[in-house]
């Protein structure tokens, strides 16, 4: 029978499902899959503090993204802005409930859920409190993560702007810049911390989870 410690030293690549043995890495070194070169794990110091700082920044920029105007178009003196409020109003008015709900969940609710869960999770882990809550948050994050589509929203926004370019004068709002920041921060956060390591850290801080 294989012991827990031996299993803890194994990792399966998320892309090709090849089984790897973890070897101790020196500081700031990374380990890649031997078959498909994807990042497996890394050894970085202060992961918790650094990621928490990034998540706080991401929370602020996400808040700004949804609070203010993303872009404004001007067609022969008539203006219309893309804001969260305008989005709700148009969905209600046009009665596009299915597409509207999908959009709001994928672009607004899930990203907010992810960032606020990360914020609570990392803060609690930093102060070594809330064993059960942190465990539930980690599980929630695993379920919600595939459903956040802010990056796809940004590309869609660029496509929409190209389509409008010939007819309208386009003005970028504060939230457009905030959206770019949110995306960059999201990429850095994903690069910084893996859920494999967060669970590892969880066990180191709180001990084993009871049945």
């Amino acid at each position, binding site marked *: 029978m294989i012991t827990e410690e031996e299993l803890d030293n194994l990792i399966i690549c998320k892309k090709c499902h090849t089984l790897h043995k973890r070897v101790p890495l020196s500081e700031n070194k990374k380990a890649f899959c031997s078959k498909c070169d994807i990042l497996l794990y890394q050894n970085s110091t202060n992961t918790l503090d650094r990621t928490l700082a990034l998540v706080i920044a991401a929370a602020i920029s996400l808040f700004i993204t949804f609070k203010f105007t993303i872009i404004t178009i001007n067609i022969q003196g008539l203006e219309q802005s893309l804001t969260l409020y305008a989005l709700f109003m148009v969905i209600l008015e046009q009665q*596009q409930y299915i597409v509207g709900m999908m959009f709001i969940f994928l672009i607004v609710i899930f990203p907010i859920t992810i960032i606020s869960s990360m914020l609570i999770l990392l803060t609690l882990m930093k102060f070594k409190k809330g064993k059960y809550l942190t465990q539930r948050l980690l599980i929630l994050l695993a379920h919600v993560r595939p459903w956040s589509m802010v990056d796809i929203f940004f590309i869609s926004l660029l496509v929409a702007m190209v389509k409008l370019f010939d007819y309208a004068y386009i003005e970028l709002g504060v939230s457009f810049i905030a959206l770019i920041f949110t995306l960059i921060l999201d990429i850095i956060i994903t690069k910084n911390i*893996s859920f494999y390591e967060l669970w590892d850290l969880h066990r180191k801080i709180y001990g084993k989870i009871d049945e």
Partner: protein
Amino acid sequence: MNRKLDYVRCHICEAVNYVDDTNRKCRRCHESITHDLRLSYHKTLAFLITAIIFYIPANIYPILISKQFGKTSSNTIIGGVIHLWDAGSYPIALIILLASVFVPLLKFILIIYLLISAKYNLHSSKLDKHKLFYITEVIGPWSMVDVFVVIILSVLVHFSGVQIYPGEGATAFGLMVFFTMLSALSFDPRLINHQKGDSSNANS
């Protein structure tokens, strides 16, 4: 009944577990990891069929309807791509064509291929199948681009004289992407691993 032990990656906490095929909970996060493979197979198939059904209205019905001073015109996905191509926006036309037409089709074909090879033990590289599955999972959500574009346009082009609405095609398309994602999420990677010699797991 198959009792072969295998290394399984928990889909929640990513821990490696060494378990047999009975219902097991992950040793680290206590979420269940080894569901019935047959259930995973049928869920994947059911969601996939639903997605394919939605793919038809998604392409037939207009995704975008525009009203200009009482005059209504509508565009299907393909119509929109042709429109963009004619207008000279080649990169955008290609993005929409790839994201809205090819990515969903690719995903359908790949999931069907994976299901067939799980059921009939096709001899093919497990490594390649895992990689292909991973790639389609990553590119899958990008199919939403066209639906998002239509919603953004409907919010912005909202004047008394000129208006843009999402058409029925947009709803069908959104649901199609939703069910394709559910299908991929229901697919247990062990269906790829268990193909040789233990067909009892995947056969219905």
